[in-house]
């Protein structure tokens, strides 16, 4: 078990290294300079700045500095807000940055996973029933319509027209302020879980070993909870890792809609200010999360599926 985790971790390191290399070379090998066009700067100041950011060094040395900083958990400094550490922007001491995004994503996952699984299981158990058809239609609609459309429409309905929930703002980060954003994310990502669960349980219930369980005279309840639930959930787990990352990304889009002070605002500002270092940091951090979640999924697989153990 521990050996397995170590092995996977060792495999993840080169992946992360190459991602950093790709992103870093993209930023640093494209023509142009982050401080170009800042006309107000005197040549001396510009030179000092370039020195401060190691931009006067050859590419490989710059890369070495960057990797070295990354290994110490340091994303470097913002190009726009001179002297401002990116770590403080992404992980501020007060509520903001990544913490807002994480908070929103966690709330959403807490709804998405159980609701998606329960809906999927029920739809699969009562295949072709009215409930099943309802769930399937729901899945088709909300897997097609993105958060950036459902978000504003829900605001128009619940905040602007009926004044039930606030249209924007983070408040104290409680459920009252986060209800609409969480709803938006839940609607967008419940189908992902639900479709997989439904397909999976239908396949499992048609399998030979469930027929054997029926032939033994086991009740439906025992068949579902003892024999069917584990094989049903295994494909669901495989979508959980990529999904958590998509929820994070979706959360960033949703933050835009609801003006929440998370990574989304940070990304927009970085994009409009052409703050490459900040975008690069967010991209690399996102990749890091992606790899970590895929690792977690692999470990869960390992625990749940006896066939992987050797």
């Amino acid at each position, binding site marked *: 078990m521990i050996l397995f985790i170590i092995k996977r971790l060792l495999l993840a390191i080169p992946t992360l290294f190459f991602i950093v290399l790709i992103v870093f070379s993209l930023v640093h090998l494209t023509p142009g300079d982050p401080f170009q066009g800042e006309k107000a700067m005197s040549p001396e100041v510009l030179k000092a700045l370039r020195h401060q950011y190691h931009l006067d060094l050859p590419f490989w040395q710059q890369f070495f500095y960057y990797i070295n900083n990354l290994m110490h958990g340091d994303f470097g400094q913002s190009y726009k807000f001179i002297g401002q550490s990116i770590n403080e922007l992404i992980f501020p001491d007060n509520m903001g940055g990544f913490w807002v995004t994480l908070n929103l994503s966690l709330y959403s996952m807490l709804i998405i996973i159980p609701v998606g699984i329960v809906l999927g299981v029920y739809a699969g158990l009562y295949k072709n029933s009215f409930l099943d058809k309802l769930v399937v239609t729901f899945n088709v609609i909300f897997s097609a319509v993105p958060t950036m459309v459902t978000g504003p429409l829900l605001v128009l309905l619940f905040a602007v027209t009926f004044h039930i929930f606030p249209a924007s703002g983070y408040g104290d980060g409680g459920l009252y302020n986060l209800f609409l954003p969480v709803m938006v994310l839940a609607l967008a990502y419940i189908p992902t879980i639900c479709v997989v669960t439904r397909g999976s349980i239908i396949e499992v219930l048609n399998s*030979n070993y469930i*027929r054997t369980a029926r*032939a033994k005279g*086991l009740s439906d309840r025992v068949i579902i909870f003892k024999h069917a639930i584990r094989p049903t959930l295994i494909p669901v787990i495989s979508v959980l890792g990529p999904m958590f990352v998509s929820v994070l990304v979706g959360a960033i889009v949703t933050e835009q809609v609801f003006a929440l002070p998370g990574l989304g605002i940070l990304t927009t500002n970085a994009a409009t200010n052409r703050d490459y270092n900040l975008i690069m940091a967010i991209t690399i951090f996102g990749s890091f999360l992606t790899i970590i979640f895929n690792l977690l999924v692999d470990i869960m697989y390992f625990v749940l599926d006896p066939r992987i153990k050797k």
Partner: protein
Amino acid sequence: MSILSINDLVIKFAVEDGIVHAVNNISLELNQNEILGIVGESGSGKSQTVLAIMGLLANNALISGSIKFNNQELLGISKAKLNKIRGNEIAMIFQDPMTALNPYLNIQTQLIEPLLLHRCYTKSDAIAEAIRMLDFVKIHDARNKLKCYPHQLSGGMLQRVMIAMALLTKPKILIADEPTTALDVTVQTEILDLINQLKVEFNMATILISHDIGVILNVCDRVNVMYAGSIMERANVHDIFYKAKHPYTKALLKSIPNQESDILYPISGEPPNLLKLPNGCPFQERCENKFSKCTQGIFIKREFSNGHYINCNLDES
């Protein structure tokens, strides 16, 4: 004498393109302490017949007729009542042992389930009994095998586990649906020997299904020959082998590969489409002895001495 009797059983499946006539009006009796064979090509309805006994047909199945176990009607009884019978008084083993056991649960969990459910054993008693039964079906090192997962055992071994699981509750009827088809030939013989032995040791009736008439002739006491959902001929093994009356049975016997000659005698043509069966005998298209009556939708059932039954228009007597 008869422990299970099936009367006028009809099984249809509603599919997108119409109605599949899987089993058409069959009747048969299973006697105490006998091995009853059902032989037929795939799609002849033999598996659907036994699945109907176990209440395991697909949801889109339409069933009529009657299946009586010890004079208790099985068709239409509640699921709770059915669950008291299946796995307890009637047990079943399946064609593909590799997929018939749950890959996510170890052998022990699956093996002791019937004892805990039907016999209210304590867990430790159930394990002891399971080990005894694994020994009986000649699995060595049974105690360690209990901790294994299905993927760690071979197909022949898994089929023995399935048999042990079926026998644990000492059922009155064992249904074996192509138990050896997915196995190697050498393992096949071992499993068939085991089934033969069970009849003596457990005093139970067995229904053995196979598409291989050789297997059936080796093991069974009486044989039903099925084709396209109808029972074409039924007799004891001796009569089927030496005095077969139905053209289909004769063709089947002739098609057995023979060591003395290299010539194979396949049955020409294809089985009829179960969506639109011809009127009368379903074998008429491929029958060598077809005559006017057959195409007019006439399909006569006849019973001879010694329980020999045929479903054919030919007058053999």
